[in-house]
């Protein structure tokens, strides 16, 4: 092997990492003990956080990157990949996460945005990024900035799947609506949705996003997870849904199996039995405008 030909942080490596997560469940954890439980339950990765989104909502104030000490403890506790959240536009938080050895950075609307105009220039990093999106234009703008993975935003910390469904249906429907358009019409559509034309053309050709697309923001039960998979998600992020349920261990295992058997209702019925109470959840329509997280970043 010629050492001078080693290449790190290429697009293929970043997107390839995201591909390895497909068909998996990525779980929010706030300490080493929760991370071990998630790994044991079959999570493909954990998201290391100071607080789960439901508690971020409850706490109020400015939500920032987690304490590096906490992230390091979680990295030491598990063998699966560890992801960390940086504020939208806060490239120094992302640099810190990369230096800590986090495997993927989530530039996340769950934290308080640091920049209301620019997202992080993700092409400048070796570590891959995942970003939230509510529609095709937003997803393609993030991919154009270097995101290696997209997750539909949903509405984090609510335990209410309605926004996750809305965003997944929007992206899938918009991609379907590209089928059969001429090149000229695709370029016109790209202008409408404020996305690069070459990425719109790529979506039309492939019939899907150019990167892995997970679902996030409100998934609380095995049925919710399977719903998102049937709607076309490549995998799911579960935030507050696991550790805000009455039986996190059983809920975590059940959600992993529901994602694996998302089109087999008998299995989903079986794993859903006797799980106890799911997280209580919030009605989206009762949120005040400033409490809505999904509108952060565009």
């Amino acid at each position, binding site marked *: *092997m*010629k050492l001078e*030909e*080693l*290449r*790190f*942080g*290429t697009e*293929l*490596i970043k997107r*390839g*990492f995201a*591909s*390895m*997560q*497909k*068909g*998996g469940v990525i779980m929010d954890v706030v300490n080493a003990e929760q991370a071990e439980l998630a*790994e*044991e339950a*079959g*999570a*493909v*990765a954990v998201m290391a956080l100071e607080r789960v989104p439901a508690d971020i909502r409850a706490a109020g104030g400015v939500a920032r990157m987690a304490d590096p000490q906490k992230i390091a403890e979680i*990295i030491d506790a598990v*063998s*699966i*990949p560890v992801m960390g959240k940086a504020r939208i536009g806060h490239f120094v938080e992302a640099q810190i996460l*990369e230096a800590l*050895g*986090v*495997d*993927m950075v989530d530039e996340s609307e769950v934290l308080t945005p640091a920049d209301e105009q620019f997202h992080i220039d993700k092409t400048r990093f*070796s*570590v*891959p990024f995942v970003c939230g999106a509510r529609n095709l234009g937003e997803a393609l703008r993030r991919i154009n900035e270097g995101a290696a993975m997209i997750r539909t935003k949903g509405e984090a910390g609510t335990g209410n799947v309605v926004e996750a469904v809305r965003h997944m249906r929007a992206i899938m429907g918009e991609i379907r609506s590209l089928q059969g358009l001429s090149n000229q019409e695709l370029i016109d559509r790209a202008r409408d949705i404020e996305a690069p034309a070459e990425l719109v053309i790529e979506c039309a050709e492939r019939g899907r996003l150019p990167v892995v697309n997970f679902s996030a923001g409100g998934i609380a039960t095995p049925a919710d997870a399977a719903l998102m998979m049937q709607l076309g998600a490549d995998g799911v992020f579960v935030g507050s849904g696991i550790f805000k349920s009455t039986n996190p261990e059983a809920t975590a295992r059940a959600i*992993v*199996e529901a994602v*694996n058997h998302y089109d087999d209702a008998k299995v989903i019925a079986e794993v859903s039995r006797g799980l106890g109470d799911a997280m209580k959840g919030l009605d989206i329509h009762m949120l005040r405008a400033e409490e809505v997280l999904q509108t952060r970043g565009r």
Partner: protein
Amino acid sequence: MGVKVGVLALQGDVAEHITAFREALADRPGSMVVSVRHAEDLADLDALAIPGGESTTISRLMGKNGLYEPIAEFEGGIFATCAGMVLIADRVDDPRVRPLSLIPMHVARNAFGRQVDSREAMLEVAGLTEPFRAVFIRAPVATDVDPQVQVLARIPEGIVAVRHGPHMAFAFHPELGGDLRLHRIFLAGLGV
């Protein structure tokens, strides 16, 4: 005659494996590439691919789906990449993964470190005249292989490609990047 390949579809880059095998078999009429999730899906297959993904997750789901015995007794060739290489070994450095014990070798998970240490490298592989652009993603390495296992490639960290009977295992991802030479060598070795 056509070749029937299954891809273990529990978790990981299943779609990439299906696409790569479909392309490698495009000139073999009557060939099929299918997903394998249950033991009965293995019937009539000439080969099985075990994809990249999280070996802990795939191991757990293989146990849940009752796939350990049927895959261990599978008579076709197995094409295992990354997590697949961990699973096909008989010794793994991590008790969280239960191996299939099909290739006598010791495998270490995540042998390169964190994701930022994942790399592309031009790799000399036995049987190929030109180097192969190998994509290592949080990759394992074989630290020790029994003498009957053929080593196809090694790097300073360890052994990264092996062949054992009809089985081939890679620490990297031949299914990513569009170079299908290793798929073709594997398919030629099936004797179908």
